């Protein structure tokens, strides 16, 4: 998945990849990655749960807009089947959860450097 993202991004198209296994996401170093700790085959969530699927897509768009540099992995904090999702009122503003996780990812990256 990450390898595909790298190849496509090299052709001049912005990519955001979802990842279900964080360890692999770290290894492949894709341009922008959102990591979710959800079961295989459920990258967008549970079947027929529109708000959950929209939440993931909303964060994908936020990632495309806001990721400041390549190789960043943002862990979305939504627990599997234990989260209540509300309809998204403003698609142009980022979700609080995403902003928090983005800040944390940037902080961790800085600490590593």
């Amino acid at each position, binding site marked *: 998945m990450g390898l595909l*993202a790298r*190849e496509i991004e090299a052709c001049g*198209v912005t990519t955001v990849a979802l990842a279900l296994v964080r*360890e692999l996401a770290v290894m492949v170093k894709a341009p922008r990655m959102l990591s979710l700790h959800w*079961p*295989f085959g459920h*990258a*967008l969530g549970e079947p027929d749960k529109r708000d959950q699927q929209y939440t993931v897509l909303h964060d994908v768009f936020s990632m495309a807009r806001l990721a400041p540099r390549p190789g960043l992995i943002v862990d979305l904090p939504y627990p599997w089947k234990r989260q209540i999702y509300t309809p998204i009122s403003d698609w142009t503003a980022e979700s609080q959860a995403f902003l928090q996780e983005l800040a944390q990812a940037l902080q961790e990256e800085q600490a590593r450097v």
Partner: protein
Amino acid sequence: MYFIKPGQEVGAIRAESPVNSSLRGCTQRKALAMNKQTRFTPTSPWRERLLRLSNDAAWGEHFAYWFGKVTGGLQLRLEKLRPSSEIPWTPLRRPIAQATVAIITTGGVHLCADRPFELRTDASFRAIPRSSSSADLCITHEHYDRRDALRDLNLVFPLERLLELEAEGIVGRVADVHYGFGFTQDPRDLLAPGRKVGRLLAQAQVDLVILVPA
């Protein structure tokens, strides 16, 4: 009724399974004819049972995660596929409300009318037009539990959700063509088709690609 035994009548279905030239010395396992009612390639009952455990039981889910992590990690490591620090980068050209968005899935999604993927390993891709409804799409993949994905294909291929967002004006345009990949054993095989898809997407003036794993 998810299983079809070899030789069992499944109705007038589709073309013979493809012969994949990229198979390196491994015994080729033919994809059985697609079950029309369930729209996924049937696999052996034991494999199906194991895959369902990864979805039905918490320990099954943990095991599947661990297994995916270890096998995927080993593959990447053994093949020295740890990419260099230079990561390609293309900033988003225009706001989402004006952008063209496409989806790439590795969940084995393809048009039922198209050639199915080779189950063991297949690095080729299939084009999926935006006009295809979920009834037109099938899944050929035997490495995840596909029941939920078939109930709601948006879990691995969120085309309907994107079309809804396009109608509301949140997304500029949904691309005319999207792409589906199957299961690939050797990640190196994905590099050439990935580049090809990238070129096709760039030609179609796509601004943002969402990559959805299985």
